[in-house]
């Protein structure tokens, strides 16, 4: 087996292609950041008048910050629901045999793989049927439900890797199931749970499709930005986008460190989710 990768020649065009694609991926982001400092506003080349105007404007935009707060509330609540349900779901999938297990697994994954509009509309119909008013609560309901599978997948993977013998030892030494769960099982799942939490948080903060249909009076951040975009573009949006980018960057680096510290290969949610589906 090869020790340090495969030592065959690297074609030049492959490198060029890789650089070009990466450039393509980062071009809009770079433009966004650069123009958030642009005095002349959005558009126009070349950018001039370096300014922090738009960031200052952003700082005073109370409506926007309200929406940020709303998004945080939703994200944290969704995290609680998703993990609170995803953890037992993962345990059930790993250890309990129940009728309709395969169906359950696929059902839970559907919100990730179906276009968001379908899940959003379905939930809207349920909400209307129950007679619930549209508000942050309905959005929390939507996010929490849709993201259960993220928690389930991460925790399930963690369970598969865990050493079953530890639990057996605990039971053997006299602890009952509950004690074993709190003292042995849960601590071993720390990393997957935190990883899932990070992922759910980020996904919820950016969620639009499902939120679109469940929104009440209070906007989340993406929907606030959306409604402004409908009215016209302002460089302030660039500024908030830059901040979102920096924030996402931090989150992903954190998540990645967490995952690789847990000994995972560089795999991804989608791949594991697909494998789950198969």
């Amino acid at each position, binding site marked *: *087996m*090869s020790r340090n990768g495969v030592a*065959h*020649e690297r074609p030049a065009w*492959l490198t060029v*292609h890789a650089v070009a*694609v*990466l450039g*393509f991926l980062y071009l*809009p*982001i770079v*433009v966004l950041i650069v123009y958030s400092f642009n005095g002349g506003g*959005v*558009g*126009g*080349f070349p950018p001039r008048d370096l300014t922090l105007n738009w960031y200052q404007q952003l700082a005073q935009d109370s409506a926007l910050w309200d929406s940020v707060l709303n998004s945080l509330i939703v994200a944290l609540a969704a995290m609680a629901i998703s993990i609170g*349900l995803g953890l*037992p*779901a993962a345990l*059930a999938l790993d250890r*309990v045999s*129940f009728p309709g297990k395969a169906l*359950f697994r696929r*059902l*839970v994954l*559907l*919100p990730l*793989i*179906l*276009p968001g*509009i*379908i*899940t959003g*509309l*379905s939930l809207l*119909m349920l909400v209307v049927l129950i007679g619930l008013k549209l508000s942050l609560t309905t959005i929390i309901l939507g996010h929490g439900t849709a993201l*259960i599978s993220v928690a*389930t997948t991460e925790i399930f993977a963690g369970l598969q890797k865990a050493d079953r013998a530890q639990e057996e030892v605990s039971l053997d030494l006299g602890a009952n*199931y509950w004690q074993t769960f709190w003292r042995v099982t849960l601590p071993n799942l720390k990393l997957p749970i935190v990883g899932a939490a990070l992922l759910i948080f*980020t996904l919820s903060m*950016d969620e*639009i499709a499902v939120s*679109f249909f469940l929104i009440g009076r209070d906007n989340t951040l*993406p929907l606030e*930005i959306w409604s402004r*975009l409908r009215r016209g*573009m302002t460089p302030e949006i*660039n500024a908030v986008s830059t901040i*979102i980018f920096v924030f*996402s*960057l931090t989150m*992903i680096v954190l998540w*990645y460190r967490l995952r690789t510290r847990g000994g995972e290969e*560089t795999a*991804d949610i*989608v*791949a594991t989710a*697909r494998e789950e*589906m*198969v």
Partner: protein
Amino acid sequence: MFSRAYKLVVALPPIAWVVLFLLTPYVLLFAYSFWAVTPAQQIVHSWNVQNYAELLRVPVYLHVLLRSVRIAGSVTLLALLLGYPLAYYVSFHAGNRKELLYQLVIIPLWVSYLVRAYAWKTILGSEGVLNTLLQYLHVTRHPQEYLLYSPFAVMLTLVHIYTPFVFLPIYAALEHIPRGLVEASHDLGASPMQTFWRVIVPLSIPGMIAGATFSFVLSLGDFLAPLLVGGPSGIMISNIVVSLFGTAYNWPLGAAISACMMALVLALLFATERLEKKWRFT
């Protein structure tokens, strides 16, 4: 090994929740498609298939659906063409920069969808970066209007969004290929190029299928990119649904279109799942 109480406590809450808040809504959506709406904007629970009949009868729905399929197909194809060589490069040729490059590709994935779509809007607009740049360089004299508010803009935006999504499962599949197989191939006389087509590509097919499915399904159902950069000519099928749930108030019809989309997507998922199983060797 586990007591019945344990099993019940563990399995029941998620199952109950999922049945209540996931299964029921989807079923409800399906049910709605068989109902009707009165001119007074009241939903009437009279079971009929008029909505589906209308979808087949009125040409605009099929027309837009076809356009959506075309766009989704082009996006998927382009995302594969961009994403596969990149994944191959990072997996096989990146050396000790592999981790860094992987993270570099992932990062745009995590930046807000809205932010990225908006960025393209600023680039492609008539006052946008690209147009002013082209004029600055004297390549063009007037703003190119067709760049924005067109199917082209929708496609470009979606390719940008979904290339990393396609990259991920392909990269995972490539990483799973034991490097010993590449050495064995060389040992037996195959050049790197031959090894690529005879060994690496066949073993990465499940990854390609997974990425392509994901990209196609989500592009098909996308309504945000068309609203931001699509203009009237870039409308996709989900936009019709959105308006049917908004100003064009006809929930049952919207539900019917959604149900069709859902059926199409589920059929596709079923087919690709079987295909993926057939090509899974590692």
